């Protein structure tokens, strides 16, 4: 494994803020994972909050989309190490996105003082337990299917 290459930049501002290019290199490494993670997180939310889906969406959409985005974590990566990194970052970001969407009403709506502190652990707990089994299975299921197919058939 060779170390990741540093992206070239002509911007003197970027060079001044980030002289060694490590920040830019790190960002370029995690960016695909963050992107896939955000949409995977939306898809998990569709599964964990299926009762309030709009009429046009079906209950199975959430899981199917999570599985698909697990596959895209591999498809959107150039190398196998990049693929693993993208999948792990995307999985974590998706998990956090779902929890954040669950607790968001505590801040979007007005609650009496103290109620937020009381409700927060409970809502976080429900958000985590709602997806804890199915989300890893669907996401890594989709991911490993693509890795295996790609490794064997070189698609």
């Amino acid at each position: 494994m060779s170390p990741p290459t540093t992206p070239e930049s002509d911007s003197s501002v970027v060079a001044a803020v980030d002289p060694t290019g490590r920040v830019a290199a790190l960002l370029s490494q995690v960016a695909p994972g963050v992107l896939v993670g955000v949409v995977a997180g939306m898809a998990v939310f569709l599964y964990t909050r299926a009762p309030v889906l709009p009429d046009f969406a079906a209950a199975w959409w959430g899981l199917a989309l999570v599985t698909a985005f697990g596959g895209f974590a591999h498809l959107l990566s150039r190398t196998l190490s990049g693929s693993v990194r993208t999948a792990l970052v995307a999985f974590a970001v998706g998990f956090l996105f779902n929890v954040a969407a669950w607790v968001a009403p505590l801040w979007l709506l007005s609650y009496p003082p103290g109620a937020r502190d009381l409700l927060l652990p409970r809502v976080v707990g429900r958000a985590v337990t709602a997806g804890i089994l199915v989300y890893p299975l669907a996401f890594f299921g989709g991911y490993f299917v693509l890795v295996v197919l790609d490794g064997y058939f070189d698609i």
Partner: protein
Amino acid sequence: MTLTGSQLRPARPAVAAAFVLLTAVTAAAFVPTFAGHVASKDVANVDTTVTDLELATDGSSLAVTFELTNPTDRAIDVTSADLQARAGGERLTRIPGTTVESVTLPARGSRTVVATLEVQDGAADTVRAAIESGDLTVSGQFQAEIGTESVDIDVEGEREASA
């Protein structure tokens, strides 16, 4: 470094196109779902104003006209209701005995809903007097749905709002 075959590059626009398409589908479903999630926590703030109270001529039923205002970004389907009319702490209507037509409160919109309550035997005169004096209060709840999730809209001692 092991190069896998699948690389996102102009030579594989189908992968990028499929990702963009699924992202669009996900976002299109996520926006109303998130609105529904917020609405399910905000349903306590549905405004339930009583605009009219009318006792049937035979005294057997009381028609309560509500102006329901939905403050959320998702439509709320009102399906049924359990309401009681009281005056001076005394319950004047039967439990159960509320009928209400199904109505959908649009996002950030209002609808007029008429709930019909069965008046208890012999309470018609008390109800009539309480309507006259403005002492009649209506409390209970509407049962409603956001998507397929059941939510309750509480009605807490509403009096007829002065016109």
